[in-house]
């Protein structure tokens, strides 16, 4: 049996797709598993032991020709035809598309196989959206709104692959080295290196038994050496993987190195900034931590540049908090004061239990209530008597009893999901996801410093334009919440969407003005 898996995205995605390959390997222990990746990632071949063979899609080569008048006009056409011919010379039993974009969908149709899973075209038209999960993935994953499913979880459900159990941290055979991955190809996701210099100096004093190393590739070596001098370690992907495998901890931005560390169980702290969204792409590792930048524009769009005059989300993480979070990782200690440090991954593991994301999310929300000393019961009023949520029945009962015990009737968990087999793509299920999205963002919105003033203006009936000018363009989300609250109906999925659309519209109008 020969299985081909298309993984035609970036390095971080390929590294994450290894979990899907592991799932396939468990299901088909004797099958030949082939992986197709872009030719620019040729280093990957040695890092995916689950794959019998790695094929390289000639993207770089074709792109070099596409707009080059020295190349035959139809070179890329012929090159791709040849490449597809080579692939089809193998007899594929099954082809999976891990990529979920239009290009890979066309390629899926070109590849001959007995069975195909994932997005593909049929006679040039999109097909393959044959289960509710893949429809949800297709519709919502690229949106900037919270979806409450981890990328891997959603992809695995979409492709009907069973993921292996979530891996745990591994503390054995580790050296007293703390690694820092502070480079990212996306500037929105980076933290100022000058600030990190003081964090590292501070840590070096406090943790003399640990060696601190800043990972770097050749391209960024000079810049890193300018900031971190002798702490910089330069190497390729394979050598970096070896470093990560034996390090005591990794502190990283949202990078492929983070995903690499999950395969080694390396204790890690992710600094989540810009468009990085821990909901979707946190480290797939139980016990990994995320310190998340807080800003009303977070997470921003993947293809956008930072819209703020200053990098707000990065500035929201102080050097002191970051240093403490790193110390906690090393001591394997929880710190109740570090409310920015979240558990990751936060995927809504459908089978539920106390590890489930919904549970963690509720707890997190309640945690915010405690540490900020806010009385949400009185501030929100009766509209929150009814909150719809998705859970298996047993989870709901347990969660409800805990909440009732702690908040005396404040949260009455409504069993809306009773007739919904968890997520089945039905309108009710979408409503549940929307309600969850609202709940998750509520604390940050309510505790933002400008919320009170904004709230008063809204209460007094100021028009939208004035409110926008007051909020200095930072309205996204706030307006959604306000509009949402004004409806007083958290079960109305469509209302949520219309409120968001309204907020988006006002936000765009404010920006243009």
């Amino acid at each position, binding site marked *: 049996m020969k299985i081909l898996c298309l993984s035609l995205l970036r390095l971080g995605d390929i590294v994450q797709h290894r979990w899907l390959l592991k799932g396939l390997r468990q299901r088909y222990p004797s099958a030949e598993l082939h992986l197709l990746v872009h030719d620019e990632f040729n280093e990957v071949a040695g890092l995916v032991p689950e794959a019998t063979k790695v094929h390289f899609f*000639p993207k770089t080569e074709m792109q070099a*020709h596409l707009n080059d008048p020295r190349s035959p*006009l139809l070179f*890329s*056409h012929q090159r791709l035809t040849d490449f597809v011919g080579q692939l089809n010379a193998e007899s594929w039993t099954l082809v999976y598309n891990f990529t979920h974009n239009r290009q890979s969908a066309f*390629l899926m149709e*070109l590849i001959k196989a007995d069975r195909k899973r994932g997005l593909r075209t049929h006679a*040039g038209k999109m097909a393959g959206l044959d289960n509710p999960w893949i429809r949800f993935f297709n519709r919502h994953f690229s949106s900037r709104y919270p979806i409450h499913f981890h990328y891997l979880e959603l992809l695995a459900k979409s492709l009907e692959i069973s993921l292996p159990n979530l891996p745990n941290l591994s503390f054995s055979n580790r050296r007293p080295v703390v690694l820092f991955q502070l480079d990212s190809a996306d500037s929105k996701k980076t933290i100022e290196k000058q600030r990190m210099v003081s964090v590292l100096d501070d840590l070096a004093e406090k943790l003399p038994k640990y060696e601190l190393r800043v990972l770097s590739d050749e391209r960024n070596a000079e810049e890193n050496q300018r900031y971190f001098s002798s702490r910089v370690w330069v190497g390729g992907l394979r050598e970096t993987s070896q470093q990560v495998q034996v390090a005591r901890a990794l502190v990283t931005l949202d990078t492929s190195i983070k995903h690499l560390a999950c395969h080694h169980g390396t204790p890690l702290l992710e600094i989540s900034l810009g468009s990085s969204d821990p909901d979707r792409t946190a480290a797939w590792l139980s016990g990994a931590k995320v310190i998340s930048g807080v800003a009303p524009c977070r997470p921003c769009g993947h293809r956008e540049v930072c819209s703020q005059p200053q990098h707000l989300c990065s500035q929201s993480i102080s050097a002191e908090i970051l240093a403490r979070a790193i110390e906690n990782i090393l001591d394997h200690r929880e710190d109740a004061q570090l409310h920015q440090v979240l558990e990751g991954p936060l995927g809504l593991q459908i089978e539920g239990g106390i590890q489930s994301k919904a549970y963690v999310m509720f707890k997190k929300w309640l945690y915010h209530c405690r540490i900020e000393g806010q009385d949400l019961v009185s501030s929100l009023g009766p509209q929150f008597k009814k909150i719809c949520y998705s859970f298996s029945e047993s989870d709901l009962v347990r969660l409800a009893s805990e909440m009732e015990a702690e908040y005396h009737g404040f949260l009455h968990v409504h069993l809306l999901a009773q007739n919904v087999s968890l997520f089945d793509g039905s309108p009710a299920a979408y409503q549940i996801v929307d309600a969850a999205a609202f709940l998750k963002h509520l604390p940050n919105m309510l505790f933002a410093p400008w919320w009170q003033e904004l709230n008063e203006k809204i209460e007094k009936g100021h028009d939208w334009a004035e409110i926008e000018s007051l909020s200095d363009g930072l309205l996204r989300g706030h307006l959604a919440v306000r509009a949402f609250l004004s409806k007083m109906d958290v079960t109305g999925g469509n209302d949520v969407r219309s409120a968001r659309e309204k907020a988006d519209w006002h936000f765009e109008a404010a920006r243009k003005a």
Partner: protein
Amino acid sequence: MFNYKLNGNGTKVPHFYSGPLVDFFEPELEGAEWAKDVLRRFSPQSACILGVGGGYHIEALVKAGWSKPLRVFETSQALVHECAERCNYENLEIVLLDAGTTEDLFRIPKFVEMLQSLRLCLPFRRAWTHQLAFFSELFLHLTLRSEESLKVHILHEGHSLSDSQILNPERLARATIHDVDGAIEFNSTSSNLVHRCIMEMIK
């Protein structure tokens, strides 16, 4: 008139009248740099090279690791002979073009056949000095940027032209895959899918 001169290192440098067909002082280095650039950018199953020069660039390409079939076009018998002596490479075919004009080439079955399976055309422009106009036109043919060659190619593949505006010589010389979109009707669903797949790459 062709002749050879020795440079300061004692290397034979081909000349057309008084103009060298390769770098006079460092022909090997020039060839090596050209080969390095080619290998960095391309890795097709086969390629043709326009212009033999002194054969240094072909020798450098093979030395640098090129292992696929190579076809070299040249108009000068003397240069072909010199190149054949220099380059001992089993996958090398040196084609002497004795046609008067490039249009005449289309009457040579081997040339037409070659156009149909064309993969990559690598120009070595300094070696075109003795036949600049001929090689320039030939290059357009070999990159499917002439009316004749594009027609030969797409007809052989079974495609058809749905917008003949693309055949405008000036437009064709600068054409990219964007211009092909809508101008060529592909013969099969799979060809069309290949094209759509490529268009996604340049979005």
